């Protein structure tokens, strides 16, 4: 299958679907690095023009990565729902955009077509969409999940409290958890990136989080973001594990570079389900993704990075996750060069994830070797929240002292909740009010002193003299 567009005297040819998708992709450094991006701006638009005429059904007939070679392709095609696809069957990618933007595509209609949409269809239509389109359609998608609270209800924005410490010091982690809770953060998950993959340390951190959640009776869940095989070992040793974490990507080869395959995720999910630790729901998986990871592992098969990212969501949705987080600015300038590319990528990922039915959060972040700053993050944060983003990170003062990058702060979550009238998960919000952290109208109630409920457990006065 090849494609062409005539623009004036110039005819543009595109050899196959993956070439067309790559050339139609909005500019980003990773696609240039891979040597698959459009050579000129005009060629990019020519590709978008041709892409608009491609029938959605073509993505089912022409897998970008061969079915025989790749278990992610097999997962995508084997789980496609032909019944709900009937409404989309006659549409081109251009028609699909028009339909998504129309009143016909309301929340119920978008829910009904989830299993009919493949990652490639979502990625393709996103390439024809402006930022406002990505926001408008994503906002109409409804995805809720649950474990000890309910994530993703309309009008809610949750936060992952990320209390990382450079050496996994329990006191250091606990100090950041206290700070985050007192700033109303932590309803999506309290999730630690451990500094090492030491099994004993992972298990100790799981006990630490379990202790906090039980002691303060917090309706939230915990996670230690370690390799899935470590989580399996920890569960075997009887550790109190709520959510299984894993980084995932959009091809079998990229997942292999992470040391995983689909059966391994299935086994871990089953083990976590058997622990029955959820109280209001059973979504036990937490996945992280990010554009560029497949290329970084040289496992992109010539497919553009945004489409590869969307394919990772097919992996995610096979395991009914509580949370999926696109870590959009972590990977560096060779994949997303600057604030402009990071912002667009974050909104594309959110749109594609939501369209496929995932509880999409965004690690709105940047590293110190990329052309971006706090202003860029404020723009993505505001736009992501307007788009109905499910959750963001919350860390003290935006500075992750273990992973060495900047993401959204506890304060940032309060900013965006304030300007857009958003709330945490309802179970968690009631806990905040009960503990004197929020007032009845959802505003931050804490003064200089600890609320009474925290004074029962914390002994700050002893620290003053040291």
């Amino acid at each position: 299958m090849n494609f062409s567009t005539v623009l004036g005297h110039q005819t543009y040819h595109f050899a196959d679907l993956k070439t067309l998708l790559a050339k139609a992709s909005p500019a980003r450094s990773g696609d240039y690095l891979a040597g698959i991006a459009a050579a000129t701006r005009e060629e990019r638009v020519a590709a978008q023009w041709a892409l608009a005429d491609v029938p959605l059904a073509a993505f089912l007939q022409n897998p970008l990565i061969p079915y025989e070679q790749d278990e992610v392709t097999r997962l995508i095609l084997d789980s496609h729902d032909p019944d709900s696809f009937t409404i989309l069957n006659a549409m081109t990618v251009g028609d699909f955009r028009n339909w998504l933007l129309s009143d016909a595509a309301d929340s119920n209609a978008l829910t009904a077509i989830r299993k009919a949409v493949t990652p490639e269809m979502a990625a393709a239509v996103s390439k024809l969409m402006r930022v406002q389109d990505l926001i408008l359609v994503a906002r109409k998608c409804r995805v809720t999940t649950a474990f000890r609270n309910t994530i993703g209800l309309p009008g809610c924005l949750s936060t992952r409290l990320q209390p990382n410490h450079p050496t996994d010091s329990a006191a250091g982690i606990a100090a950041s958890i206290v700070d985050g809770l007192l700033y109303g953060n932590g309803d999506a998950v309290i999730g630690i990136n451990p500094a090492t993959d030491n099994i004993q340390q992972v298990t100790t951190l799981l006990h630490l989080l379990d202790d906090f959640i039980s002691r303060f009776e917090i309706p939230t869940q915990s996670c230690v973001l370690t390799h899935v095989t470590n989580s399996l070992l920890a569960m075997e040793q009887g550790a109190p594990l709520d959510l299984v974490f894993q980084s995932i990507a959009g091809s079998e080869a990229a997942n292999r570079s992470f040391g995983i395959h689909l059966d391994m995720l299935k086994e871990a999910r089953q083990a976590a389900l058997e622990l029955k630790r959820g109280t209001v729901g059973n979504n036990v998986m937490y996945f992280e993704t990010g554009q560029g990871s497949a290329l970084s592992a040289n496992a992109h098969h010539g497919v553009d990075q945004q489409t590869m990212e969307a394919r990772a969501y097919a992996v995610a949705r096979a395991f009914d996750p509580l949370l999926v987080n696109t870590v959009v600015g972590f990977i560096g300038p060779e994949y997303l060069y600057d604030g402009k590319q990071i912002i667009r990528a974050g909104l594309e990922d959110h749109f594609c994830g939501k369209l496929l039915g995932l509880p999409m959060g965004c690690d709105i972040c940047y590293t110190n070797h990329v052309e971006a700053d706090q202003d860029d993050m404020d723009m993505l944060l505001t736009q992501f929240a307007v788009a109905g983003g499910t959750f963001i990170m919350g860390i003290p003062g935006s500075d992750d002292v273990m992973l060495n990058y900047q993401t959204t702060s506890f304060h940032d979550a309060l900013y965006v909740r304030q300007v857009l009238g958003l709330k945490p998960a309802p179970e968690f919000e009631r806990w905040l009010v009960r503990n004197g952290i929020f007032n009845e109208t959802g505003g931050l109630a804490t003064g200089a002193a600890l609320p009474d409920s925290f004074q029962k457990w914390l002994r700050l006065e002893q620290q003053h003299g040291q």
Partner: protein
Amino acid sequence: MASDDLPEDKHLIRNDWSVLREFTPARIGLGRAGTSLPTRVNLQFQLDHARARDAVLAPLDVPGLQMQLGAIGLASQAVKSMAHDRHTYLQRPDLGRTLQSTDARLLREQWHGKAPWDIAILVADGLSSLAVERHAVPLLQRLLPLLQPQYRVAPVCVAEQGRVSLGDDVGEALQAKLVLVLIGERPGLSSPDSLGIYLTWQPRRGRTDADRNCISNVRPEGLDYAAAAQTCAYLVAGAFKAGLSGVQLKDQSRVLENTALNAIPFLANHSLPTIIPE
């Protein structure tokens, strides 16, 4: 900046729990203006970001590092990746992973015939030359006595504009059984000088992250040299024993001082279970 450093201002709300900053370098208890960051706190962040950006661009003093290595009795060899400058390095990871062919030949001709090396060591600037200049030599001083004489260690290679996978090229050129890459990690706001150690069994071009073990944040304020050296030696021994590295090689060492690390002095009735390894 803790909130008790903040000037008097009736629109500022401080946080008494900022005293907990003694337990973490994280920016906790910052206080607030409304729900936003106070002015001074915000300016401190901007300053730290500016410094971290500058650190990324600082070049590695290769002759200086080689002199430091010489001073502790280590032979070294300067090599370069295919990325010629910082700008190229930042946008072309493929070039930063590849050894210049002249250097690959040099390593093969000068060094690989000398002995069957067990371990090759590459010190690379990565994203923080500061980390390498401060921590590579003190770390090696503690690590090498744990590796020698059991393992034959090749002369230390020092690379400019190098990424982790450059170690695969170096290890392959030297025909080493295992490579250790000591590399400057991306600078953080509070830590412009974190060193990472990556261990790869049978280094060959095409190895992936799943084939490596990583020890991160090596610096006195993070994982100190002695602990990092112990963990590294533990993993090296494990790699030689199992004939592999990466996700299948688990760090079950107990070098981390769990008792001290797991104490939370400010939390009432606190006790975490003691984990007994199997």
